Each structure stands twice: as C-alpha cells, then as structure tokens.
C-alpha cells in the first residue's frame, strides 16, 4: 500500500490538536522485588484493589494484594524490561477493556487488543472487567430458548436465554464442538457470541476461528484469546474481560451467548498467581476464594428486565429485556466430577451437559450422557414443538438404559421389553449429529416427531442416520410452507401433527435412504 503523506500529517495534526497534556497528580511506588510476573511494590498508599498500575515501557499491571507496607501486583504481559527500583504509577482506574459492536468478528487478547492482524479496533467505550452482577430486582426469569441446534441438547437439556449451562467432560469428548455448534446456530438470530479461549494452544484457537469463519459465524462473534503462552494473569482475567464485552450487549437489551473454554485452566492460572502472591493454599493447593472467582463470573450471566435495560441505557432503549447466556466448560480428569473445581462449578450453574469418553468412542456424538445431564431452568424456555415431541426422548432413553443389558437375549424377551429396547436403540441412533451442522426447529421437530410417533420402528437401526438426512432434505424441498411455519412459530397442534404425519408417510412411501 502506498502511504499518503498528507493523510499521515493530517492524522498527526489531529492527534496533536486533540492532545491534552494534563498535570497529573498520582501516587507512585517503587518495585521492590520482581519474579515470575509478580511485582512487590513499596509505596502507593492509596492504591485500590484491582487497580490498573502503570509500569515503565507502556506495561500495565493489576494490584491484587494490598498489604500494610507493600502491594502485590501481577504484570499483564512481558515483564523482562522491568527492574527492581523502577517507578510504578497508580492510574486511579480499575482494569478496563474496550467494549462495543466494533469488536464483533475480531480476535482480541485478554486486554482487548486485536491479535488477528486486521488493524486497530475503533471502539467507543471501555468498561471495567470486574462488575457486580445485577441484583434480584433487575432480573427476569428465563423464558426464551437459546437454541443450540443440537437435537440431543435442545430436546433433553434445553438452554434458555440468560441461563448458565455447564459443559463438562474429559478431554477429547467434544466439549468445544458442542459450544462451537451453539455459536454457529446463532447465525441470523441476532444473538451475539463471545468465545473466550483460556490456556489453549494458539493452533486450537486458530482452528476455531477458521471453522467459525467457514460457517459464516465469525461476523457475530468476538473471540477473546489468552493462549497457553500468555501469562497466568492474562489467562485469569480473560473470562472477566469477555464477560464485560458480553454485558455490553445484555445492557443494550440484546441477547448474547458467552462460552468460557475452559474454566479449569482459569482456576489453574489463578492458583499460580495466588501461590506466587503467597496467599495460603487450601484444597488441591487452590486459594480460599476459588469458588468466588467462578461464582462472581457466572452470576453476571443473567436475563435482565425492562427496567434494568432502561436504566443501563439512560432511557435510550425502552421495553426490551437483555440476556447473557453462559456456557462454561470444565475439563475433568478421568471422569472425576467430584474434584474441587468441577463440584464448585456444577453447584453454581443451572445444569450441566455431561459428555462421556465411552459414549464418544462408541460413536454416539455428541457424547451426551442423558442420565447425568440436566437443565434446571431451560424447560420453561423450550419451544412448544420441541417440548411436546422431545419429552418422550428422555423417557425412552432412560427405559432403554435399564433394559440395555438384556438386549443380547432379545429372542427370549417379551414383546413389550423388546419394543422398548428397539425404540431406545433408534432414539440413541437419532440423537447422533454431525459437527458443524446445527438443525433448524422444523428439522429437529420432524426427527423427534418420527421417533415419537413410532414412524422409525420399521426403519433398520443402522439406517436411521441416513433416513434422517433424507427426511430433512425431503421436507426442505417438498414441505416449504410447513417448514417455514414451524421455524417461525415453533407451534404444535393436532393440525400440524396431521400435516407432519402425512409428510413423513409420503416420504417413506416415495423415497429411498
């Protein structure tokens, strides 16, 4: 690109014009010791907890430990150029990140700086990373669905807007895949998404970004990345930074979805910072407030009422409710959900999606354990059609699990038991779904309808997946009106049931799979 000299001098001129040198009155301190990204600072008698500190060389830190004669601070970023005896200035501000719609489609670090090489982000507002969650008076109960596009989740563990639903499982069980599918499914719904990557490989983050881009989901998504090579302090603050960016949309009366991938690593990063700050270790060497770091973070995901939005926007937005839905991810070690951090987060969230290695290896993907996965509030937010048709899925699977052990004696079993086993096998097959292919409400409705009404009973178990794919392409081609009606209203009544039945029966009589 050819540089235009006039442009540059204009730019400089405007910068000089708008520059206002102010005489600053700030308190200062000196670095007493520095190790592993932690600085002990002498002085700064009026520093606040969580305040942004200015180190030499345009480096910033955050004051975490306020002791009688010293301040313990973490340095955000590289600290090799800082030396003992350097001056540290207070800024009088709690750590802030940029917020706003300009961040959509971008990849930023934990401080909101762009790291995707697409140039600077001209955001208009900044906001503190630590904010208190809205109180009881400002909340509204969850009653709108946040569709993930995954049959198994939307039918059995529905997520509502403003809910916190934990995704928990061992490594390599498809936790991220579930979250990414949920983000992709928000395309065109107006729901803004934030994906916070904590302590992951930079290559994994790049993969996620590429996949989102391929499926046209990057335009409504902000990616906050604190990769494994970033300092523990950045990994610790990344979820709060992402949450602040999501709250911006919530407070404007819009809906947002945030994925924390994953909070186990954030707890590890916090453990490192806390131990280096010489805070006393507790269970599993985590500091005493490891519950609070997650509870205060997840409490900020909420559905807020009309009054709150009106107050937050100073009356600019009236009559709209906002929501921030959180999908935190926790990685367990060897399926142990009774470890410290998993139990904490399970107790904070409104339900969990439990993914299992055995199911994953058996080819059931998403590998959701239907027995252990629950959603405590999502039922109120399900669409009518999914609620009506999906209700039996859980029951079928539960009955099947009890009888599955007898499946090999099929010939000796009575008729009822055999029917239940066959239904269970078909529903299990039907719950399988490919990655990056979220379903619309109508497609999901037809699949569940077929299982519910016994229309799958004469289909071979091995052919269920093919049958479903063929059914979806058939209804999308031949029942356009019904599909549109279902997608728009998600209604269900006898008339719709009749239309659906005739469509499926016609499909079965005319098509092959």
């Amino acid at each position, binding site marked *: 690109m050819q540089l235009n000299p006039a442009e540059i001098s204009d730019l400089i001129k405007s910068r000089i014009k708008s520059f206002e*040198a102010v005489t600053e*009155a*700030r*308190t*200062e301190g000196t670095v*007493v010791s520095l190790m592993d990204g932690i600085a002990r600072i002498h002085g700064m008698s009026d520093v606040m907890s969580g305040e942004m500190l200015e180190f030499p060389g345009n480096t910033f830190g955050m004051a975490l430990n306020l002791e009688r*004669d010293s301040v313990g601070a973490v340095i955000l970023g590289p600290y090799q150029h800082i030396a003992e005896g350097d001056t540290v200035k207070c800024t009088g501000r709690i750590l802030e990140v940029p917020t706003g719609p300009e961040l959509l489609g971008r990849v930023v670090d934990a401080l909101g700086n762009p790291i995707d090489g697409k140039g600077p982000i001209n955001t208009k507002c900044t906001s503190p990373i630590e904010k208190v969650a809205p109180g009881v008076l400002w909340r509204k109960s969850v009653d709108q669905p946040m569709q993930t596009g995954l049959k198994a989740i939307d039918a059995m563990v529905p997520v509502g807007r403003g809910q916190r639903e934990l995704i928990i499982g061992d490594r390599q069980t498809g936790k991220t895949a579930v979250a990414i599918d949920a983000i992709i499914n928000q395309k065109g719904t107006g729901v803004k998404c934030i994906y916070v990557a904590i302590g992951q490989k930079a290559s994994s983050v790049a993969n996620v970004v590429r996949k989102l881009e391929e499926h046209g989901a990057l335009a409504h998504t902000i990616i906050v990345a604190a990769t494994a090579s970033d300092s523990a302090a950045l990994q610790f603050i990344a979820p709060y930074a992402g949450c602040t960016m999501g709250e911006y949309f919530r407070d404007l009366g819009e809906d947002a979805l945030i994925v924390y991938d994953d909070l186990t690593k954030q707890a590890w990063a916090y453990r490192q910072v806390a131990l280096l700050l010489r805070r006393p270790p507790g269970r599993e060497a985590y500091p005493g407030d490891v519950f609070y770091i997650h509870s205060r973070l997840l409490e900020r995901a909420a559905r807020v009422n009309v009054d709150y939005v009106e107050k937050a926007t100073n009356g600019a937005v009236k009559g709209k409710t906002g929501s921030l839905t959180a999908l935190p991810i926790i990685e367990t070690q060897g399926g142990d959900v009774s470890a410290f951090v998993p139990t904490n987060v399970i107790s904070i969230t409104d339900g969990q999606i439990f993914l299992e290695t055995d199911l994953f290896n058996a080819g059931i993907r998403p590998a959701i354990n239907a027995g252990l996965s629950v959603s405590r509030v999502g039922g109120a937010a399900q669409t009518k059609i999914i609620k009506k048709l999906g209700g039996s899925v859980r029951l079928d699977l539960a009955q099947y699990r009890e009888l599955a052990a007898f499946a090999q004696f099929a010939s000796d079993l009575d008729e009822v038991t055999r029917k239940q086993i066959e239904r269970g096998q078909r529903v299990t097959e039907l719950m399988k779904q490919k990655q990056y292919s979220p379903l619309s409400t109508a497609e999901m409705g037809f699949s569940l309808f077929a299982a519910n009404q016994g229309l799958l009973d004469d289909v071979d178990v091995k052919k269920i997946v093919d049958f479903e794919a063929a059914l979806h392409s058939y209804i999308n081609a031949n029942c356009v009106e019904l599909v549109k009606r279902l997608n728009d209203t998600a209604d269900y009544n006898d008339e719709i049931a009749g239309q659906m039945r005739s469509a499926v029966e016609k499909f079965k009589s005319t098509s092959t799979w």
Partner: protein
Amino acid sequence: MAENTTIARPYAEAVFKLAQEQGDLKGWSDKLQLVSTVIAAPEMAAFIGNPKVSKEQLAQLILDICGNQFDATGKNLVTLLVENGRIGVVAEIFALYELCRAEAEGSVEAEAISAMPLTDDQQKAITAALTRRLGRNVELVCKVDESLLGGAIIRTGDLVIDGSAASRLTQLAKAMLP
C-alpha cells in the same frame, strides 16, 4: 525494603511514644539519625553480622563512636537493637519515626524538583497551594534537575504532582503512537 519497614514499625512507634513522654521529639530524632549514619558507614559493614564480633562488643563499639551524647535510655535502645539483631533496620526506624513526628507536629516535607531554580515568590506560592491541599504545614525542599526541560515535579510521600515538560512530551509521544 517492605519487610524491613514491617520490622521497624514497632520499634519506631515505641521510640516515638517514649519521646512524647519525655517531651523530647527533636532529641530522639537526632539520636536516631546519628545511629543510622554510623550504621550506614561502609566501615561498619564488616562488624555487623560478623560472628567473630559479639553482640556486646558491637553495642559498645556503636556507643563509643556515638560518644557521650546518649543518655541511659538511648544506650538501652542501641543495646536492645543489637541484642535482637535488628541494628540493620535503624534507618527505617528513623524514617518511620520522622513520619510519626511530622504527623504529630502537623507538618509534611515536600520536594519540588524544577528545571530552573525557583524564585522566592514561586516557592511561597507552591508552599501555600500544598498547605491548602494537604492541610499541613509544608516544608519545601527545592532541587534543580535540568533534564525536566521546564515545569516542576512536586513530591510528598507517595503523591507526585507531575507538571514537567519532559513528562508532557512523554504523554504526547504516547498519544501519537497508540
């Protein structure tokens, strides 16, 4: 440094209370200053913490150097500090003692660093402004640092009021290169 301050605080508070009881704030200040100067002397480093020099010898040595300016309580303080192995923090004790003293006397020391020597009127104006802001009697100490180019920096305790040309230029540089 921070740890030393923590160690020095009880000593400084004890000395200050004693001085208040005796009504001799200035005298104790002189004594502490003298001891800290003696301790800071490079020759003394060989004796402090040397296992071959017993504590009694070290205490006697310090008292000998300080001469006969010390009364019984002053001697006791030096012996106590040596006994407890804390003679090394006497400089911090002195600094904290001075803070307590300034607090009690309602005065505060301020340092004005300017690019050019300040005139008497300027000094008066700064002193008056600081007195208003801090609500204390300000003792102004003036210094000249040509690298500031213009303006002045005023320092009192942790508070720094930076109105120097050098820092404005740094701010401008930051604003130009975001």
